[in-house]
């Protein structure tokens, strides 16, 4: 991922086990940071700064794995769905592989 304007998003878990090794269920997407609503951008910045790298989801709940390029390196956080702004949740698409 070379573009610093981009968030790469993967939704994993859930009742169906999206994104598990060997699972045919995938849910991925990306969104331009510059296109995020102002409030959502602030929340996302805070999540990346807040040291939140894992959380306890609702049982069968989704976790969002969000990656952005900061400087020269990639940083990934994992956030339970209820704490992810809708503009980021809405970028993923469920597919069968």
């Amino acid at each position: 991922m070379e573009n610093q304007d981009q968030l790469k998003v993967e939704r994993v878990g859930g009742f169906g086990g999206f994104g598990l090794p060997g699972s045919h269920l995938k849910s991925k997407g990306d969104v331009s940071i510059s296109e995020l609503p102002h409030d959502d951008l602030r929340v996302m910045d805070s999540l990346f700064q807040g040291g939140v790298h894992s959380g306890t989801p609702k049982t069968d709940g989704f976790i969002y794995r969000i990656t952005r390029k900061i400087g020269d390196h990639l940083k990934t956080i994992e956030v339970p769905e209820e704490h992810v702004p809708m503009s980021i949740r809405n970028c993923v698409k469920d597919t069968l592989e």
Partner: protein
Amino acid sequence: MSCTCFIIPQDVLEKLAKDTHLSEELRKASEHTARVGVELRKLRDQSAALTRATSLVGVLPAALAPFPAVTVYDCKHGQTTPGTPVPNPGSSADSTASRTFKETTAVADFYQKVFGRNSIDAAGMTMMSSIHYGVDYNNAMWNGSQMIYGDGDNQIFTDFSNGNDVIGHELAHGVTQNTLQLVYKGDAGGLNESISDCFGSMFRQWRANQDVNHADWLIGHDILGAVSKSRGFTCLRNMSNPADPHALAPQPTKYSQVTPTMDPHYSSGPPNLAFYLACKSVGGKSWEKIGQIWYLAITGGARPKMKMKEFANRTRKLATQKYSAVPAIAAAVDQAWKQVGL
């Protein structure tokens, strides 16, 4: 112990509340969340402490009702719960509402008739469900106090309330929360998921009065969408063959394949298979003997970080104690666990 935690640290909320670059609405929301969060954290910690304390001294809560109330709410494709209450859901023109109501009521009946349990908490707790959650939402879940069902996208999945094993699975998470209190990671997470698949499947079989040979042992068979079916998939998970290539999410079959960071829906494969093998070996109906042992195992005292080996040994011991006159049952349980490497 509830699996819902607060992911935004308190200091982040307080910082957001003072950030003048944010809209006033968001600053106020952050301030309110920060204030409420302090008290909710105390409440959550106290609730967990109370659950642990009462379970240690064997205190049972006073029954709320002899049979639980069943309520259904409509999220109207939003993601705020619980949503708008559906009046008389059992006779609603909305088939999702009526189906959810009827099957949830049936789950309550199942626990009462088969295990002598009054609802999720053994004290008549109201069983609440929210339907039409989100848009094309391919999921169902238990949030610590209620069930939530999405409608599916009609491609990969259909309406998640179409699967009575799904409904049984989600409600079983509530039972686990009130019994073993398993955390949602590691061995305990896999056991948490397996217990939900086992009791969800048992409920489905009980509804159809199926014995172990007529049951399909498939999780999610009734919620597959057109695209999933056209690609030859038959289920989400297969308890009789966790590695089934026709499953949307195949799983490991041996405990040696399980790792500590594995998603619980993946690591539940070996204990699912052990339950299936034990049921098939004993024969008859899954809830009559093996189901009883599994129920005793989950109600035998809270063990939030239980290892799979410990659970296996608990079922072995219970099988011997409860069915001492029929040693073949304990032998079936023992052999089933050995076959998955436990």
